[in-house]
């Protein structure tokens, strides 16, 4: 049996009186794209932050490629190969689009002392794949909606991660833009890395995920193929039902 890229073992996170994540077990296999859905406040972003190391769990263990990383700070997890995007986008506003991505190439899983021009070359490569190369010299805060999302993807991918966490990348986009960004994510998926993707839009989740997890009040209420999950009465009640009202 292959070892999972990521194993969450009974992970919980408490904020004061609130159990934002409650006893979650997850395995993500190499090359797998796992969708994470759940209503607002379910604990999805918290779970991503626990994996990326921005938050530390109250209880439980996180294994990355079989190695316990629960106590590692975020930057060391990034070096091991965990890349993420932020629900609230976090570009480097005053830097050019190219240099934003170059940070990922210069750091990320890179261990050697790479030169700036080498990092910029790699960054340019990802800008091309994300169709952003014509805007390389613009300031990052001058980009519009879908370009910002593509920039986030390029930044994370320039880190050469083995696991990518995508937290509501599509938020705020219109339908045409969503299709563009789905294509961009497919480019990312074809590199063979594992992806955990959080999304509200069922269309996005269905077209990207091999497997779905459902979080509700911090608890994982269901896991399975998109078909199984989306037809499950518990899921419909907890999540889809409410949204259809």
């Amino acid at each position: 049996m292959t070892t999972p890229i990521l194993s969450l073992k009974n992970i919980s996170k408490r904020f004061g009186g609130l159990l934002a994540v409650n006893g979650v077990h997850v395995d993500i296999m190499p090359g797998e794209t796992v969708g994470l859905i759940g209503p607002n406040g379910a604990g999805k972003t918290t779970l991503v932050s626990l994996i990326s190391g921005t938050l530390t769990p109250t209880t439980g263990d996180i294994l990355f490629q079989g190695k316990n990383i629960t106590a590692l700070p975020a930057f060391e997890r990034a070096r091991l190969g965990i890349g993420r995007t932020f629900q609230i986008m976090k570009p480097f506003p005053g830097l050019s689009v190219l240099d934003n991505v170059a940070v990922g190439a210069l750091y990320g899983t890179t261990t050697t002392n790479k030169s700036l021009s080498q990092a910029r070359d790699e960054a340019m490569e990802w800008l091309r794949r994300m169709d952003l190369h014509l805007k390389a010299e613009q300031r990052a805060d001058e980009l519009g909606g879908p370009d910002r999302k593509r920039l986030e993807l390029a930044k994370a991918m320039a880190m050469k991660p083995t696991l990518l966490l995508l937290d509501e990348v599509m938020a705020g986009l219109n339908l045409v833009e969503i299709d563009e960004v789905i294509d961009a994510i497919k480019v990312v998926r074809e590199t063979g890395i594992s992806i955990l993707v959080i999304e509200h839009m069922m269309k996005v989740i269905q077209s990207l995920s091999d497997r779905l997890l459902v979080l509700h009040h911090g608890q994982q209420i269901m896991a399975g193929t998109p078909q199984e999950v989306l037809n499950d009465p518990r899921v419909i009640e907890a999540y889809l039902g409410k949204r259809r009202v």
Partner: protein
Amino acid sequence: MKRLLPVLLIGVVGVLIALPWIAGPTLIQFAINALMLATLAQGWNIIGGFAGYASFGNSIFFGLGSYGVAIAMVQWNLPFGVGLAVGVVFSVVFALAMGVPVLRLRGHYFAIATLALSQVMSAIFSNLDIAGRNIGLVLPLLRSDTLFYELSLALLIVATLIVFWLSRSRFGFGLIAIRENEDAAQSMGVNTTRYKVLAFTLAGILSSLAGGIHAYWITFIDPNSAFDLSLNVKMIIMAVFGGPGSVLGPVIGAALLSGVSELLSSTLSSVASLFFGLVIVIAVILMPKGLTDCWLKFPVSRWHYFIHNIRQYRL
């Protein structure tokens, strides 16, 4: 223009090296002071301009450097060079010990914490026998402005070369990423704590050396002059006016503002310094990224440059 710059710089440095044999003693004394301020502005540039941490603690390093030289020379009878090293050791210890807790704070909290530390250090040295308590220490007299001038110039050149290296190194790029968005930098693999402490230490070493040279030149230090907050304010104004995060901005800012304030203080009254303050405030509003940025972008966007900047303040 790009090719001309190195030639121009070498020319300027050549003239500066030769200055003691060209200019009179008054100008040299003014220049020693201006070079010191430029070095301090350059040091502040590393932590404030690159890493984005507005430090009010850099005058602490200046004070530690001053006391390093003064204590070594007066109390221990050691040569000046050893005194400089003692000051650097004080500063490095301080930067490593205080940097870790203080650099956890962000924005205004960091500024206020460093401000408070500066007061604490002044109080501590006022009560140290070895530092002459609040009376201070009198250093041996060395009448050689040429020596002090050349030393100050060498230090500024070293400081500027360090910042030049920063501007094209992985380390400097990481500091800029921290300034632009610390959380994102951290989750992209930048060891933010280590980088910030290193930047603080590097800035501290430069400020400390400037303080050591200054103490020997002035031949007297006390807690108030060594841990002078107005010095910290000056270095910030000069670095910000010239262009924080740029290589030459802080030097140009220091040169210009030293010159202007010298002219005003010798010819005009205190109303003039009020006017001076007003000019700086307006300059910072019109060109928040300093002279160097304005120099590069004004030819392209003309007065839209200023309008764009004012809009950023959402006045």
